[in-house]
């Protein structure tokens, strides 16, 4: 299945070269893959990630993705 991925802050280095900030890029994954599988597929060490959103909702690593989902992944961020 094909999904769209956005990587932010320190995770931007795992995006294809030339990807603009906040710009989604396509990823092909086996059907029913979880967010955890996506993270490994992207070559990101799981502990570098903190929060993943699917269509604006934070989802756990075990969440199973659907074709066409847009996933935004963040390292620990905060401030205010």
């Amino acid at each position, binding site marked *: 299945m094909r999904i769209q991925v956005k990587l932010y*802050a*320190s995770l931007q280095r795992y995006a294809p070269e030339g990807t603009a900030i*906040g710009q989604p890029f396509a990823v092909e994954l086996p059907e029913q893959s979880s967010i955890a599988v996506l993270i490994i597929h992207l070559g990101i060490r799981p502990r*570098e990630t*903190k929060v993943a959103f699917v269509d*604006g909702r934070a989802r756990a690593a075990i969440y199973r993705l659907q074709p066409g989902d847009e996933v935004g992944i963040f390292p620990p961020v*905060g*401030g*205010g």
Partner: protein
Amino acid sequence: MWMLRIDMTDRSYKLEEVAERYQKLGGRGLTSTLIHDEVDPTCHPLGPNNKLVFSAGILSGTPSPSSSRISIGGKSPLTGGIKESNSGAGFAPALARMRVKAVVVEGQPAEKGAYWMVHLTWDGDKPAVEFLPAAEYVGEDLYVSYAKLYERFGKRVHVAGVGKAGELGYRNSGVAFDDMRHKPTRFSGRGGLGAVMASKGLKFVVLNSEGAPGVEYADKELFMQGAKKLRAALGEHALTKPQGALNTYGTCVLVNIINEAGAFPTRNFRTGRFAGAAKISGEAIFENNKQRMGKEIYNHACSPGCVIQCSNTIYAENGEEIVSCVEYESDWALGANCGIDDLDAIAKMVKLCNAYSLDTIETGDAIAVAMDSGLLEFGDAEGAIALIEQMGHGEPLGRILGGGTQATADAFGNPRSPAVKGQGMPAYEPRAIKGIGVTYATSTMGADHTAGYTIAPEIAGSGGKVDPLLADASKADLSRAFQKTTAMLDSTGHCLFISFAILDIPSGFEGMIEELNGMLGTHYTGDEAVAWGGEILKVERAFNEAAGLTPVDDRLPEFMKYEQLPPHDVVADVSDEIMDQVYGEL
């Protein structure tokens, strides 16, 4: 330790012993307790009976990491209730080293429009004050005034000051403190305390701690042990470590995640997503600077002893500095909230706000309300800049906006006023993040994100994970817990940003409690320290009740209850009953 009372009616001062009731307090705990004890809650905030209190945090002036917060308190002309607004600044440790527990500014000169400065120095064995005329600085750009003051008094002083917004009595005026390069960029911005300071004829406090003896510890060994643990936690946490998220991207690192969550208030709280978010994000600031300056630029400290170092600098195409620093709140208020996605324009607006001592949040909210009312188009950066200039020049329209979010909405007959207790909301949509909405509604300070930063668990995943869209009674408990902890933290002198490390790393929290106990000679457990924060809230709440605020004031704006917010299409649906539980069960 002393309590320094400054009477601006006759420009006299006295040093008092610190009463027992105040000895274990500092920062917000002390400013709020003094205001509660000494100020008539029904007084006019800009009249002679209000007071302005400065107090450094309990740990300021020590080697404790990120502990240089200075609190200012008074009755707020914006909310009509009690106000504490704190800033990171060298002023805090300098005041602490002089063993001045609080500076209480009282009275009002008979001469309207006359200004003085207080020059506070160390005189052998005690602090001393001289009053100097400040007429030559009135109406001046604060950057110009601070440069003159540093020329006149030398580089070792620290300065608290008000600019044009304060002189004009604006409810959105802040008090400026000097940053590490002696510029007026660190603000106790919220609640109009700049106008309170100016109403007393006080333009600047110039503080020179040279020769001062430094702070005293009850148990230095315990303090040092605690400080070491906290330092280790801050150095380890991905958010606060060197070249971590805050040091690299600054607080604007929040732009993308809050936008992703559908909670980034856009065009006066009309939607929770901004198409230009990525362009004004912390990542964009880092990339722009790298491109413009030819190297990676990491952030710097706002105040001495900060290990987090999250203050950015915005550079123009030609390599010249536009401003330092653009915080997340300012970036949002003057950016997304006004539909503006031009970082350079936002930086220029922040600089103007600093120059006039305007609160960036209240200013951005007021401009957005004016845009929403049809005065100008959303996205009109030139128009927004012109409005800030009109505020700074005291033109009639500028004076309306200078009155803040609510005053602007009232002037234009617009029900879409994103304010609670008259204070404009910060950069998180309360319809899409319910816990922060409970904090906005119920905080003693008016709509204030720092008062109970539930964003940590609701968005950032720090201190647990909580669904931001859940609107049940657990959000009252969550907000109350954060409000209590924050009242305690705001008293320690620590920056709120240590929260992430102490929430996630138990030894960090333990270290902070040990620091406190080592400093004060107390034996607080973690729970007791948080409960102490709750006592501070009770004092603030009592002042507000006596000032005439009721539970009806603990509500989100009505328009948020009937207007659905995209993309989640949510309304403000936390019940009144749940709102009332926050303080009902304190």
